[in-house]
């Protein structure tokens, strides 16, 4: 099974060069059955990463490009009158897929954002009075431009909280960029990617993640971290219990990806910035979302041995 994971990571790595840790984070997020938010500038490979994930995981895939005139019906689907049968037929929207790429989610109006975010939370949608379940597994990978860019509607804290992780890709290092420039078009490479997993394997991996062992010593460490965010004045507010659960769940997946059946502090430290940054706010920053560099401070202030 471990081979499968490593193979998956390597496969995605052929498309997204030099971003192994982000790929692992994205995978850990999906293994923890969480939704992923990728935030970065345009052209950094957000879409590439999500497409590659969909392909190698062998999931049915659709992409919704969010724009300011996108309506909820464009996401969920709508009923259309069929003149031949004289009935209304429901045409499912792109949301009825296993993996949804919600591209540039913060360009849409809050109304449309909510349509997606409700589906993420409930795993079902209600259209015209009928409740329709969504396929399983169901993942949403949303990408967004940084909030300070033009034409964006910032997601509120409550909706950011629906995403298990928020990751940033960042610029590639010079070697990877050189390879990128020399190599062939990534779209071609993407087209050649083969699925490395099927839905059953994925589901089994997810179950295994849940069984990764967490000792009392580690729980102590996690609780100390959470307590610090609640007490230290530099954080405007502390981490919620849901945030703590998310942190632990991601750490388990990370441990599994590292081929370990128990969590060590390094697992927590590896996923912590991606899991907690969008759930916290810096005291000094009244408008922003994200604790920024404070998570590094958090990690350097709380010792693994209490």
């Amino acid at each position, binding site marked *: 099974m471990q081979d499968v994971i490593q193979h998956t990571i390597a496969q995605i790595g052929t498309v997204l060069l030099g971003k192994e840790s982000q790929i692992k984070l994205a995978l850990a997020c999906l293994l923890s059955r969480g939704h992923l938010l990728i935030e970065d500038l345009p052209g950094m490979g957000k879409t590439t990463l999500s497409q590659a994930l969909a392909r190698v995981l062998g999931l049915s895939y659709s992409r919704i490009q969010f724009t300011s005139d996108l309506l909820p019906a464009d996401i969920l689907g709508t009923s259309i009158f069929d003149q031949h049968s004289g009935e209304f037929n429901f045409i499912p929207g792109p949301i009825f897929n296993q993996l949804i790429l919600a591209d540039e989610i913060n360009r849409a109006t809050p109304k449309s954002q909510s349509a997606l975010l409700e589906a993420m939370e409930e795993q079902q949608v209600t259209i015209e009075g009928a409740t329709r379940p969504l396929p399983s597994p169901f993942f949403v990978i949303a990408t967004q431009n940084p909030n300070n860019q033009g034409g964006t509607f910032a997601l509120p804290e409550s909706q950011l909280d629906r995403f298990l992780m928020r990751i940033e890709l960042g610029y590639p290092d010079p070697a990877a960029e050189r390879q990128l420039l020399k190599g062939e078009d990534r779209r071609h490479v993407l087209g050649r990617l083969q699925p490395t997993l099927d839905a059953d394997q994925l589901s089994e991996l997810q179950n295994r993640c849940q069984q990764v062992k967490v000792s009392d010593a580690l729980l102590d460490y996690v609780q100390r971290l959470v307590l610090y965010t609640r007490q230290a*004045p530099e954080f405007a507010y502390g981490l919620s219990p849901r945030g703590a659960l998310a942190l632990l769940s991601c750490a388990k997946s990370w441990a599994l990806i590292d081929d370990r059946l128990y969590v060590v502090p390094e697992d927590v430290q590896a996923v912590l910035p991606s899991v907690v940054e969008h759930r916290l706010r810096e005291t000094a920053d009244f408008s922003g979302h994200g604790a920024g560099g404070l998570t590094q401070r958090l990690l350097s202030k*709380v010792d693994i*041995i209490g």
Partner: protein
Amino acid sequence: MTGFQIPRNSLVWMLAAQIAVIVPHVPRLPVWVTLICVGCGLWRVMVYQGRWSYPGRWTKVVFVIAGLVGIGVGYQGRVYGLEPAVALLVIAFVLKLLEMQHKRDAYIVILLGYFVAITEFLFFQSIPYALYILFSVVLITAALIGLNQTQSHRQPLKTLKLAATLMVQSIPMMLVLFVLFPRISPLWTVPLESQAAKSGVTDRMSPGDIASLSLSPELAFKASFNGPVPGPSQLYWRGLVLENYDGKTWTRRTNLTDGIWRNKQSKPVWAKHIERLGNTQSYSIILEPTRQNWLFSLAAADLSANADIAMLDDYTLAYVHRRGVTTKFKYAVTSDLEYRLETDLSDEVRQRTTNLPSGSNPRARELANLLYAAATSDADYVNRVLIYYADEEFVYTLAPPVLGDNDIDEFLFDSQRGFCEHYAGSFVFMMRAAGIPARIVLGYQGGEYNALANYIAVHQFDAHSWAEVWYEGRGWVRVDPTRMVSPERIQRGLESAVADENTFLANSPLSWLKYRQLLWLQDLRQQLDAIGHYWDNWVVGYNPRTQLEFLSTYFENINASRLGLLMLTTFFVLLGIVALFVLRTRNTRLLTAVDQQYLRFCQLLAKQGLVRQTGEGPWSYNERVSQTRPDLAPVVTRVTREYTRMNYDLGAPNNSKALKKAVSAFRIKALTANV
């Protein structure tokens, strides 16, 4: 407009503290100062809410000038004094609120708050006031804490609780400083308000003018005897002597400013005329502030050496305080109750103490001549006069009739109602009419014994006057004519003397002393008085001398520098105890056996110069160490593997055997590597 907004937590407590420290001063401040305080507080709140802005520069200048002028006017130009100084401080304190634009200004306001709180002790030093000021200090401290908290602290009560905790924690240090800090006498003093000399002893006496003597229940002084307390008939607390008589009013001879402190020595030349004959009593007196100079003591007293105490240079055996008693004043006295005073009377004194203005009170003179002619000696004459008081229908009353020009005649023959001043005055008149030197003594008589703290409390209503008569060969002898009329006054105090007429403390319905017949109330009052007495003795009266006395019972050869050393030592011992306590609680935090082993391993590695950072995980540490010291890599990795396996996989943090082995292996390797 302003970059600094004072935190809400701080502002709340700052305003509360400001109210708390100013309120006790209000009765002494001109009304408009209080109004300014209220106005500034409101303005500050408005500024905080953003409705008003800070006053401009010229507005502030106007405020300051108006404040200065106002103090000048409010105290009628008496700007050199304690109360105007306090008023000035209060005004500065509230005006500073209005220019609190930086954090620094807020600190100034808070420090001024502490200062204003302390000034309250200049006026009152009792236990309730001390507790109240302690409470104000907690409020000010809360403002100081709030100032250093971020805007996210929104629970002012928590801040107050923290301040109170700090206060309680600082009590040991406070006690050390109080007891041991080397005390020095003040370098300069500010005169206290001398208005409103309190009731009690005055330095003139004209009994005929008084229709009703109003009595004050206030404490005059407390006397603590080292031995058994003398009986009430011996408790004549002598104050001052009146020798001059103009036919109506008795006054003192010397003007205080002429006579006494011309001579720096506390005992004038005539003191050799005092012969002490035994029955020595030693006691100490805590005198309440009287704003007068008189010091009270039993006759033939010798007061403790003190730069402030002087003996009057006028043959009257009166002691005075040089500057006037403005705060509680404690002095030690040794009195010989048996004494002879001035057996040789100089002509000048004899002339003065037998002098009567001619013409007045003819009937009294006639009676004097009659009695003197029948008497065999001066002493016999005195007895005859006393018997006259006893035989006639004299009544001791606090509500005597007003007397006319020949007041002594009217009193002796017509009204025959009066209190001590009438008796003493008429008696001295009778003596002088017969050519016997006599004078009036003012002071207190009796007092209430508190068995709990072993002292005698003398109240203002114990004020008394009596006579002294000079006999050939015996000197001045105390004679109290009141005793002939109302022995209860002397034996059991004023209350029983006037029990029938309900005049006792008629003007003080709320005084505890009025309800002495309620026993439990009496007990409670005596207990509170006893506590207050210890407070006065040991806290308020703890001055450089008592400090040395107290400490020399525990330490030999105490002096200022040793005192400082002692204080510092105690201080650091206390700090050390606190430090130990803190360290202990840190170390006793429960560490599992595995964690202990791992920490030991980290310490060993730290000696190699590789310190594990806070928050550094075991594998990250392992990697760092392995890169820097490849020679140690295998053993270090073994420790790390064992540690993570036990701590995070097995979850058996109390079975550290394998880890212990790994750490030992590392230790050996590290030691050999060093060699």
